[in-house]
């Protein structure tokens, strides 16, 4: 006959599970803190008030699947990059934001634009468009690496930086000039 199982044999496993749940809950609470901008004044304010930090503006809509995946990564990594970057979401369906959608030539969603001290930062990722990041990130670390490279380049005075990610992790797209 087998001896009865001790109660605390499964205790470490339960503790690990509990810790994971607490961490997920905490991340969910923190994900609420990413600001969603719907007006031009709000975008102007955040650009003007972000000093010596990279400003990450995600242009997209919550109904898009790729946008949701990107938002998930942004929300989870916002805290990790909080010392050198600020992340904000912009809803492209708002009327007041259309001027920025046209100005930034945003045609594909989601698109992420980077600023540093109110100056636009370009990112050469091998795609046709260096002015923004189109699509989602493969994982959290990719986003953190990109933001870090932008920050390092900006601190050195460079307005265009090379993307550190391998080509297979960079979303491919085609830019069409007036449907050509």
């Amino acid at each position: 006959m087998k001896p009865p199982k001790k109660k605390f044999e499964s205790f470490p496993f339960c503790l690990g599970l509990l810790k994971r749940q607490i961490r997920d809950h905490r991340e969910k609470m923190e994900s609420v803190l990413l600001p969603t901008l719907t007006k031009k004044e709000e975008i102007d304010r955040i650009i003007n008030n972000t000093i010596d930090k990279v400003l990450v503006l995600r242009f997209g809509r919550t109904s898009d699947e790729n946008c949701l995946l990107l938002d998930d990564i942004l929300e989870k990594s916002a805290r990790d990059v909080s010392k050198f970057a600020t992340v904000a979401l912009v809803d492209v369906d708002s009327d007041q934001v259309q001027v920025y959608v046209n100005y930034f030539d945003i045609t594909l969603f989601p698109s992420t634009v980077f600023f540093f001290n109110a100056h636009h930062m370009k990112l050469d990722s091998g795609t046709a468009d260096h002015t923004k990041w189109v699509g989602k990130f493969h994982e959290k670390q990719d986003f953190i690496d990109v933001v870090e490279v932008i920050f390092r380049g900006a601190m050195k005075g460079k307005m265009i930086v090379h993307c550190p990610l391998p080509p297979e992790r960079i979303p491919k797209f085609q830019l069409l000039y007036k449907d050509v």
Partner: protein
Amino acid sequence: MEEKNTKAKKKPSKKNEFDFCKVCRFHHDHGPRHKYFPRHKELLSAFLNRFRSKIADVRFFLKNPSFLRPQEESQNRVWCVFCDEDIVDLGSSFACSKAINHFASSEHHKNIKQFLWKHGPSMDCVDDFKISDADVAKWVRKCTALGNKDASSCTGQLSRTSSDIHNKFEFERTEKETHFFNPNNLNDVKPLLYNTNEYQISHSGVTHYGSHLNVDATQLPPGVIGMTSNSSSHSGDSSGNVHSGAPPPWLTPNDGNIFNQSEITRVQEKIPVKTTSKLNPHRVGAAWAERRKIEMEMEKRGEAVNSNTDADWLPNFGRVWQSGTRKDSRKEFEKEKRKLVVTAESISMESEEQKLVKTESISVESEEPVQIQPYVSKRALCHLPFVILIFSQRAMKSGE
């Protein structure tokens, strides 16, 4: 076989123990050949030049002996780098007397030779760092002559200061001071190495000591003789001083005092706040960031700031299909926007069929034939097959 013999002949290099080089200030295992290294030679010349300047100061006093005031005794000190000891002129009546005696001593000569043998490649400069006996003898003669001349004037000065002290502290000492200074305790009191401050003097019972100042000045402990007439001049004007327990002048309410707290705040407000940061001044948007920080601080303080962000403000953005600077691309966008507004107004007045004009007006700007070339980045060149595939697909589409 011959190779083995040559290899055996080569003695293995001796591994020297680590030794500290006083000149280079680091540990090394180079052994005695370290002193021939060029870096060591440079540092040695700088090291010896520094000590030469100190000896030059001492030689000045050798040629021009002067009395050493007791309050300057602790300041008159020299570190001898060859003997590794500090030479302080304590209890000496002439400036640099102990230093002169040290530099003339045989032990110092021996240490110089040892130092130069260990660190220096040449022994030529031994004489630069020592004082000859003849010079010392001359100096002694000058000192005695000087001492005889000024003996009477010196004692007169001391008695005057002693009487001043005696009179001063008899009036200013409060009844709280009960400590009685017994001259028999002189032997128990150890000589002070440094100048005492006024606090120490007040508690050492100097007032009662005033009556015992017939003793020769050289026998008195140095700390007590540190009192000069300077101290009397400071406290004579104000109503109280440290000894009497009066508050310091910067804490008393005074009309002439510029350090009132209200005035301090007023002065601080007038000073423009300069944000000094350790960030790279050549970073992107550094000038803008500094200006913006100052504006934000002014806004915090409640001052009105001329805000540049009006409704039409746009950041500088390098657009995708425009060439030229970012300012140019912004101006172009603003032109497009104005034209859009004009055409939108014209559309509202005309019928629905004229809506096509809007799209045509945009295309009118780019009437110039644009040579469309496919964009190929450096990364894409590495992935040529992928690029070729895209082109083939495009060609197929255009063919269809």
